């Protein structure tokens, strides 16, 4: 951190923290949202809505467990359907949280300190939503533990050559490490809440979670090492997770799936949709809770730029897919390209190109990057577009592959839609509770951004 003491000239445009804040005002502003802000009618109404949406998921899953996956629109040839579309979409959204908390931490992008906490929470909730889909898609979710290697009376072991087994390991590791990273980041802030709380019960709850953290210099020393190492470990992990997800497709021989561009193109797409979700959440949250001092326009603009860049990588991916469809000379690959443009799902493909490639180009203009309304709208469009991308990849490729006799169509049923809408409800319910229960911005990391946290003398003593 000693190297960060001088704020670079380029960073002086819009500050990461609005001027006039001190160690205590930061703590006060963030922890008061949790500790003393009254529960508003708007929060309760919103919670009722998102909680009802979550209960749609419970109904959809309950009926699924009674009847089986026949209630979904899946069929042969399209055996994956919404379950895998939504799985890939949700897990992709989670990636932005890890990118912000781990990769930007390693790159010393200190502006990430204001948004990493809730982006990590978003990761956890998104991965939880993602996990539901493959579990439900197994058809017998109560036997899902068979995917793990454990000694059993059936004398059976999983096939480690299967991408679906890789997926189990990648996603469960991702969830665990995200949770650990998030919790480690929370410990000092939980101690802060413990010390600020007035009610003994609240004190006790945060005290239990803070585990007796007291901010000792020795503890901080180990803490910083552990945090940095976790960031270093999470960085290759997050890149590997969507790579492994893309292997679910790329290892198969279906046209449109069997390409080497899939891993980088999936990772870029994941970060693209993840930043879109970060913006979709951050823009209303900062307005409602008055956090414009900590989540400044600079954060939103930076996120918009990341979105623009990853969107262009995704665009390159589409271009390469089209190019290879023509250049490979494979009739199946060129048919896939024709089928996307002219087949029964052409409208989805056109919408995809509009949402992911065309519309986000407005972010080149500063006017759109600094207008929260426009930015929110573009982010929402990107979320829709990235969902369509997974729909195109899963459904169009499976609906018409090698044999015309096995062509088919996929129509989602109301249960598909209910499950999808339900996971959005579950995600928002978790977010709704999170903003009122835990500090949504990292208090101690924000404090390290204040100039008075930097000790110049320490450097002099060493010399």
């Amino acid at each position, binding site marked *: 951190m000693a190297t960060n003491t001088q704020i670079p000239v380029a960073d002086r445009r819009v500050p990461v923290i609005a001027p006039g804040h001190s160690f205590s005002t930061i*703590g006060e502003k963030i922890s008061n949202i949790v500790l003393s802000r009254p529960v508003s009618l708007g929060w309760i109404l919103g919670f009722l809505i998102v909680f009802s949406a979550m209960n749609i998921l419970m109904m959809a899953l309950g009926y699924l467990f009674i009847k089986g996956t026949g209630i979904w629109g899946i069929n042969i040839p399209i055996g994956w359907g919404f379950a895998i579309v939504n799985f890939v979409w949700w897990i992709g959204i989670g990636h932005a949280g890890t990118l912000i908390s781990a990769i930007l931490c390693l790159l010393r992008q200190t502006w990430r300190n204001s948004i990493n906490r809730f982006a990590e929470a978003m990761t956890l909730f998104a991965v939880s939503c993602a996990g539901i889909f493959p579990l439900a898609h197994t058809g017998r979710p109560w036997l899902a533990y068979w995917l793990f290697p454990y000694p059993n009376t059936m004398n059976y072991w999983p096939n480690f050559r299967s991408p679906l087994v890789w997926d189990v390991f990648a996603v469960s590791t991702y969830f665990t490490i995200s949770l650990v990273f998030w919790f480690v980041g929370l410990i000092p802030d939980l101690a802060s809440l413990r010390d600020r709380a007035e009610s003994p019960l609240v004190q006790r709850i945060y005290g239990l979670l803070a585990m007796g953290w007291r901010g*000792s210099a020795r503890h901080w020393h*180990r803490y910083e090492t552990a945090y940095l190492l976790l960031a270093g470990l999470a960085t290759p992990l997050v890149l590997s997770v969507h790579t492994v997800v893309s292997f679910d497709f790329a290892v198969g021989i279906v046209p449109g799936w069997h390409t080497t561009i899939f891993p980088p193109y999936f990772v870029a797409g994941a970060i693209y949709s993840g930043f879109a979700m970060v913006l979709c959440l951050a823009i209303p949250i900062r307005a409602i809770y008055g956090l414009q001092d900590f989540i400044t326009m600079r954060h939103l603009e930076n996120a918009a730029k990341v979105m623009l860049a990853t969107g262009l990588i995704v665009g390159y991916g589409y271009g390469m897919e089209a190019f290879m469809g023509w250049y490979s000379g494979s009739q199946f690959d060129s048919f896939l390209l024709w089928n996307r443009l002219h087949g029964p799902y052409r409208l989805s493909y056109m919408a995809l190109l509009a949402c992911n490639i065309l519309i986000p180009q407005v972010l080149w203009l500063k006017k759109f990057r600094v207008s929260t309304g426009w930015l929110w709208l573009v982010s929402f469009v990107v979320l829709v577009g990235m969902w369509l991308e997974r729909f195109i990849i899963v459904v169009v490729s499976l609906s018409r592959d090698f044999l015309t006799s096995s062509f088919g169509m996929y129509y989602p049923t109301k249960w598909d839609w209910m499950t999808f809408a339900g996971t959005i409800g579950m995600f928002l319910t978790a977010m709704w509770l999170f903003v009122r229960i835990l500090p949504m911005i990292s208090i101690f990391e924000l*404090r390290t951004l204040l100039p008075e946290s930097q000790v110049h003398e320490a450097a002099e003593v060493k010399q």
Partner: protein
Amino acid sequence: MTITRPANDSPIYDSPIYGLMAEFDSAQELVAAAHKTHEAGYRKIDAYSPFPIEGLAEAIGFHKNNVALIVLIGGLIGGISAYALQYWVAAITYPVNIGGRPFHSWPSFIIVTFELTILFAGLSAAIGMIALNGLPMPYHPVFNVPEFAKASENKFFLIVFSSDPNYDAIRTRSFLAGLAPRMVAEVPS
């Protein structure tokens, strides 16, 4: 500067002293005071701050921690055991011929090996850090000082433990008072 101690009728007054604590207003003052205390020969000392301060651990004479070593060991255990498990399953105990691939098809084993390396290393980092810090520790004597509630807010504290060989109730107190703190308090254990 004020010198506080528990009131005479306080039940903790008779308990042995855990150390002497000085409170400072800024990170810079704390680091300077920590340096001086260490230079004065005190070794059993600690400093508390609401956020990590560059150079503070070094100032109290704590230079190296073992978290990285634990992470390395954890990662190695995770990676080696993951690969060994897959080899044992796929080549020894449950060999299945899939498309004529060799039983020991190592490229397919890399992913699970990688994931479990990360999983074990990451868990080692978190659990190792928490365990080396001696947490969870619901009770600690420093919390007996009421002002210490600000240690997670905007105040900075330095403590000399009574177990330090140079500790002397009078001399240590006047030494700490000479560092221009906001206050010096006895910490009952």
